[in-house]
């Protein structure tokens, strides 16, 4: 049983990494109506920035972390303003294509600037273990879980309880009405893209604190995050976070108990097969809801 809980803790750490990126995907989907395929690469690029700030510019870990988040915010907002909004008049497919182009551009750019070799980011958490009731837990894993949950909580509080958050939600569900109320919908959209980029940066930096990274390391995270967002219901922020933790735990248990006869190669295919089965039963996702409407 202790083994089981150990797998769960590892799963929660991975789940936190998927959750922050899945939440970013959901924010963009709600506001812009598309899936941003470059979301993972935005996180990857930010991870390289954080790494460069620490390695080449001598910044302390958390200093680099927060500076990177600031860069991520403005980078995300600028992407929205300069690329997404000018293209949005031409239709959703064009915007989706643009995000795929952005994925490839960011990936190539990172390799060109920082070389495509594998890099290591020092972990901000001590390499120690703690024992809780017989379960051995990595402080690293606990740190990743803590940072992810904190970021998710901040995003929820922001959207639920602040005036700006409310105006952003309103702009996402009713842009035409919002403009009549004097809300600057374009600005709200840019802020949304900025926030999503910050979440991606957290996801990338946390992922890199557990494993070595290269320009391709976020592609697999994006796949799981996308699966999590769809599993939870692509327009449900809560659903995407729950979905991410379910997928994280599921994969951890799978690799813990079944890798001897399944092999690690089947992890991703199996996870996605389960996802598709769930969606056949519940097409709107676990938390997808039908809006109540009376005419």
């Amino acid at each position: 049983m202790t083994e089981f809980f150990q797998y769960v803790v590892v799963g929660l750490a991975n789940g936190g990494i998927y959750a922050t990126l899945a939440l970013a995907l959901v924010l963009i989907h709600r506001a812009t109506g598309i899936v941003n395929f470059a979301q993972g690469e935005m996180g990857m690029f930010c991870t390289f920035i954080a790494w460069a700030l620490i390695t080449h510019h001598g910044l302390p870990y958390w200093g680099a972390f927060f500076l990177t988040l600031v860069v991520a915010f403005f980078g995300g907002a600028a992407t929205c303003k300069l690329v997404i909004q000018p293209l949005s008049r031409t239709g959703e497919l064009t915007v989706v294509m643009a995000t795929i182009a952005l994925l490839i551009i960011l990936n190539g750019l990172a390799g060109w600037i920082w070389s495509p070799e594998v890099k290591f980011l020092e972990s901000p958490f001590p390499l120690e273990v703690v024992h809780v009731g017989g379960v051995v837990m990595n402080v690293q894993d606990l740190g990743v879980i803590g940072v992810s949950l904190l970021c998710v909580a901040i995003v929820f509080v922001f959207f639920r309880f602040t005036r700006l958050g409310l105006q952003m939600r309103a702009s996402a569900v009713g842009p035409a009405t919002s403009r009549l109320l004097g809300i600057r919908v374009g600005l709200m959209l840019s802020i949304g893209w900025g926030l999503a980029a910050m979440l991606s940066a957290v996801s990338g930096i946390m992922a890199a604190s557990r494993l070595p990274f290269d320009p391709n390391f976020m592609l697999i995270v994006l796949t799981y995050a996308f699966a999590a967002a769809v599993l939870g219901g692509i327009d449900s922020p809560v659903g995407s976070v729950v979905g991410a933790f379910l997928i994280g735990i599921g994969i951890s248990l799978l690799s813990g108990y079944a890798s001897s006869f399944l092999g690690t190669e089947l992890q991703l295919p199996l996870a996605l097969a389960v996802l598709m089965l769930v969606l056949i039963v519940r097409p709107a996702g676990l938390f997808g809801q039908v809006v109540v409407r009376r005419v």
Partner: protein
Amino acid sequence: MIGASPMALLELDDVEARYGPIKALHGVSLSVEEGQAVSLLGANGAGKTTTLRAISGTVRRTGDVAFDGRRINRRPPEAVARLGISHVPEGRGIYDELTVWENVILGGSIRRDRRGVKRDAELALRHFPRIADRRKQQAGTLSGGEQQMLALARALVSRPRLLLLDEPSLGLAPTAVSELFRVVRHLNREEGLTVLVVEQNARIALTSTQHAYVLEVGRVVLDGPSEDLARHDGVRASYLGY
């Protein structure tokens, strides 16, 4: 024919508007004085809604639209709203997914004093007891009449200098229509709010306003004091049905 007075708060002069290749307004001129309630009558497709949209900037327009002496032709909707023009659009524009309270509060988006917004939201809801008690409910669950009341309450929270109402009676039960217009008359007569209302229901529009314009195929064909128009043979035959 055009009552162009120096006191006019809103002045439209030869305004044209089009949707793609189709011209919807062929030179509309009208004016609304501060504190006045004005109705805009006409058949379907006469250009009533387009006239309001030309004012709030949700359709591209040429000609002159002046608000408080300022030309606003080139301003986008959010900038027009910030000048104090509140447009309650056709279909009400309620955020179904948000709560009643969130909808009302969003009316104060252009204001900086958050406490004032909350206070005015309470005051606006006081006009409509039916929705005031249901502030935590999802707005999409309200009936059509209640949604129209919510849209009006929300518009008031911006403290508008000019209120544009597009077909508030559309699809509502008669009791809801009279409740709504009772509030509109109160706001205009007791609180001095300037109102421009588009209506199919000419009877209630003419009894709630002081001046009226009649549109036909994108042009003003008739205007005058509302009580005179109510007695006008052509208006009676076309819009009042007796």
